[in-house]
């Protein structure tokens, strides 16, 4: 294979940014030169194992392949005797939290929050326009009594969560991913927990060697409605 002219490392965004194309394409990933170089990676000879693996995969009837998958899942469920939970993992300051995806409406970029005279306080930040809906924005970290860490990094996001017609917006410092956990993997909350968030914590999830607080969404929303409204 011909050697690659990696202009993106020389004059592109990973180089000194002197490429004249950058004015029109902004980033190398939009540039046709970069795309062509990427496509050329496919111009390599295929190893025989790759051929054999795909030949075997394609030879498997589709419904059988699906059946195998279902069986594997069913097997796992019956082995643990429980079902799995899908949670969204996010970060507030130094702590990781999780909420059930059942209450998650969307994750969006931060926007302008309009403060309400005489109503805005440390927990209730104001109103925000999310796709034409006026929603209440709350500082979850303040509500849970966490230390507030001032940061305006590019990772911060807004979580839109809620039941049915009542939705809330929580600014968070980072949204990691949606994670699936076995209900049996949830650990009980330690009896002595130093921060006040323990009353909303349903369990602890181990994720990438971090402890994640799985928040009780129902209790959280119930308390929010009582306190804020």
């Amino acid at each position: 294979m011909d050697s690659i002219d990696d202009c993106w490392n020389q004059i592109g965004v990973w180089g000194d940014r002197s490429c004249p194309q950058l004015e029109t394409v902004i980033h190398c990933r939009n540039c046709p030169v970069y795309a062509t170089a990427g496509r050329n990676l496919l111009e390599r000879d295929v190893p025989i194992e790759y051929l054999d693996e795909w030949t075997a995969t394609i030879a498997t009837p589709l419904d059988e392949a699906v059946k195998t998958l279902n069986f594997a899942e069913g097997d796992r469920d019956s082995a643990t005797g429980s079902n799995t939970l899908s949670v969204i993992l996010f970060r507030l300051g130094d702590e990781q939290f999780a909420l059930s995806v059942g209450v998650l409406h969307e994750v969006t970029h931060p926007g302008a929050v309009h403060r309400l005279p005489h109503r805005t306080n440390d927990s209730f930040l104001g109103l925000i326009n999310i796709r034409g809906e006026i929603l209440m924005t709350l500082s979850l970290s303040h509500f849970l009594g966490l230390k507030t860490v001032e940061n305006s990094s590019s990772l911060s996001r807004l979580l839109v969560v809620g039941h049915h017609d009542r939705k809330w917006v929580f600014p968070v410092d980072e949204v990691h991913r949606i994670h699936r956990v076995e209900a049996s993997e949830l650990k009980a909350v330690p009896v002595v927990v130093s921060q006040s968030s323990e009353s909303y914590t349903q369990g602890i999830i181990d994720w990438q060697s971090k402890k994640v607080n799985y928040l009780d969404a129902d209790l959280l929303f119930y308390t929010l409605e009582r306190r804020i409204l």
Partner: protein
Amino acid sequence: MLMLLFQAGDNFYAIDSAQVVEVIPIVTLRPLNHVPEYIAGVFNYRGNLVPVVDLCRLLHHTDCRSRFSTRIMMVYYPTSDGTRQWLGLMAERVTETLNRPDLDAKNTAQVSDVPYLGNLFMDEKGMIQQIHWQHLVSDDRSASLFIQESVEANGARRD
């Protein structure tokens, strides 16, 4: 019309994506004897014996090279007796699609009398020729004969 682009030699060709079911990687094919040379062989496609046409050999008289970008476009076409039949079309550099809703008689040119060779049109990449693979199975006597004989069990019949 959304088209799937591929290359044979250095030239670009396009087929209509409407009847393409999926694009799969290159697999090991079992060669067949006494068939037209552009039939690369048959393989087991999810339990069906499916013949594969080597478009590079058909258009450029060279075999498709064994590359990651060489892929098989699977089509599932209706036959005259009401059943449907699988066919694999193998080509090189099957990596892109092209949407051209504006193609009509004004900006295309009919350049060949061979039924499966379609119109030629211009694009940023250069000249692209459309391929009507349907004619490979319905018009070409030997190809349809081949499909009838070898995959009879699947219910294939000549048009």
